[in-house]
């Protein structure tokens, strides 16, 4: 109800019974206007993301889990260790309390798994029709070591460096699309939504990485195209090396989509020296979030600024970023 966002007793009850109950930690318990955060570093990483996904529940997760993973992963791929999150809810009047509780529980569970504390938040309720059921914003703070602070910049990348991914691509985007549209595909496709901070920390602690990015909206193609725009070299990827599940592949074939353009929520693209490649691959594959990791391509001195895919028949084609939404073909 609107009163749940009014600042009165109903709002306080909601905060106490639901949010504080599930997110419980010492900093949040103080319930001050601003959380006071102990940070043991001279530099912090700070990011924010809003989640407006429809449907709220999808195979492999829900908006709550996604809201934690999205922000945690943005910090993790920047080389930071995620520590604290804020969570803000914008609720449409009439949103069912039991669904909200399920979502809040997922948020709490995922935050616990990632080892981050939810230390502050906000709730607003808007009139029916003024938002679509539920929107969530999370912001995150992490600490970053000096030696990791250039990882997001992709400095020192040179021809021969390998491109690695920690598993199958396109699962999240296709799972959401399958849940949203009336396709009735029988293929079981599940979102890969997961917090990658522990996996990434393992890799950073034991190997040398030149660049990392999470291929969310726009997919792997967008990450690689942004990268070639910066490094002054080209990238060549091998179609046969791309890990794609049968279900995603089949859906993409039917709809005319390219898995390289589909969103992921539990994947990281890593660029490293060729000599480090196997070590990183082994580290990733030993973690449950990386069992299907693969080297998918390399940095090349040819076709500077372009990502080229070598397909299974030996032909080559340019892989561009998407211009807008990927729309299904007509016939």
């Amino acid at each position: 109800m609107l009163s749940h966002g009014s600042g009165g007793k109903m709002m306080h009850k909601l905060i106490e019974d639901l949010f504080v109950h599930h997110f419980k930690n010492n900093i949040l318990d103080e319930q001050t206007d601003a959380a006071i955060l102990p940070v043991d570093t001279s530099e912090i990483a700070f990011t924010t993301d809003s989640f407006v996904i429809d449907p709220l529940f999808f195979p492999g997760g829900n908006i709550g889990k996604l809201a934690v993973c999205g922000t945690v992963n943005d910090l993790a791929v920047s080389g930071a260790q995620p520590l604290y999150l804020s969570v803000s809810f914008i609720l449409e009047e009439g949103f069912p309390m039991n669904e909200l509780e399920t979502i809040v529980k997922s948020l709490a569970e995922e935050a616990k798994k990632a080892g981050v504390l939810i230390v502050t938040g906000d709730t607003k309720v808007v009139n029916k029709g003024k938002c679509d059921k539920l929107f969530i914003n999370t912001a995150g703070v992490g600490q970053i070591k000096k030696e990791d602070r250039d990882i997001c910049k992709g400095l020192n990348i040179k021809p021969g460096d390998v491109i690695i991914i920690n598993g199958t691509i396109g699962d999240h985007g296709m799972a959401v699309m399958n849940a949203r549209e009336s396709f009735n595909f029988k293929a079981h496709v599940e979102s890969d939504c997961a917090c990658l901070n522990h996996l990434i920390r393992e890799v950073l602690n034991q190997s040398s990485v030149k660049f990392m990015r999470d291929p969310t909206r726009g997919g792997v193609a967008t990450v690689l195209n942004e990268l070639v725009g910066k490094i002054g070299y080209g990238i060549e990827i091998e179609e046969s090396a791309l890990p794609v599940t049968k279900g995603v592949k089949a859906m993409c074939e039917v709809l005319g989509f390219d898995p390289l353009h589909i969103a992921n929520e539990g994947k990281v693209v890593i660029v490293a020296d060729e000599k480090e490649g196997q070590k990183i691959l082994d580290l990733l594959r030993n973690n449950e979030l990386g069992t299907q990791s693969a080297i998918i391509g390399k940095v090349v001195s040819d076709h500077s600024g372009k990502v080229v895919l070598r397909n299974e028949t030996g032909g080559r084609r340019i892989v561009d970023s998407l211009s807008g939404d990927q729309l299904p073909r007509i016939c």
Partner: protein
Amino acid sequence: MKYVDEYRNKDLILSVSEKLKSISRKEIVLMEVCGGHTMAIHRFGLHELLPPTIRLISGPGCPVCVSSQHFIDKAMAYSKVPGVIITTYGDLIRVPGSSTSLEKERANGSDVRIVYSVLESLEIAKDNPQKKVVFLGIGFETTAPLTAAAILQAKKENIPNFFVLSAHKVMPPVMKALVDEGVKIDGFIAPGHVSAITGTAIYDDLASVCGLGVVISGFEPADMMQAVLMLTTQIEAGTPKVEVQYQRVVQHDGNKVARKVLEDVFELRDDSWRGLGTIPLSGLKIREELSSFDAEIEFNVDVPASTEPRGCICGQILRGLKTPLDCPLFARKCTPSDPVGACMVSGEGTCATYYKYRS
């Protein structure tokens, strides 16, 4: 994956490529009519596997690309009528009309919804009985039977608020028109899914009267390479005919049920094609007895004649006379995010394909 992997088998494709190189003597131009074929050629890099004697050119078989600007303008005019919901396949919403696009109209408050099947439009009509739901019918013999089936279903279920704005077209007249116009084509790679509905006889005249080979092809790389081989073999031997490469799908008579549905709902009319002008008996109009579902009858909206954008050479590209690289607007003023001509809008348009894979 079954029905995919075996038709992308590298050894098979390379062996067809070798065979082609060994038999090809004459310099020939083959037109792949369908946008799906254009996409496959570029996606799988098939140009690189052909001998230099064989040139492939793209034809007018992308439904979004050939829909006239006047059609888009009409759809936009309907979208501004209070109480109207426009339903459409995805690509169409970005196509620029004379002044704006459906996507921009949607941002301005028009109710424009993307559907994946025309049957979703019927559902929307049932759920919104107080509104008028217009489906924008585009595509060839492939999508037209679905639209026809939806109209028959609307009649059966008595759904009075469902309408179709038809820009459906048929394939053979435009192919014939290109030949009559003198475009140099030695043979056609024809779309397999059209013949899955129509059968093979629709191309008989092209072979017997115009003396051109037509091979009805599937969409995987091995299909297309085999189709090129079959056409080349015909041309080298001087025996043009209609052949089916896509035998796992296409039957000589096509799909009789779908043909009957098409016949029951639509009749042929002269139709206007973007960049190509009016082609006799090339479009599908809803028959008079079903005119209560015809949006053009229902809405009395005056839409002024439209002019095509200056400098855009989509018409010549759709005729196979020029490639996007010949267009001064290509990749400069005309890009997928800000298209001038329709060939840049659809994922299967020639310009979008060139932009995506070649630029």
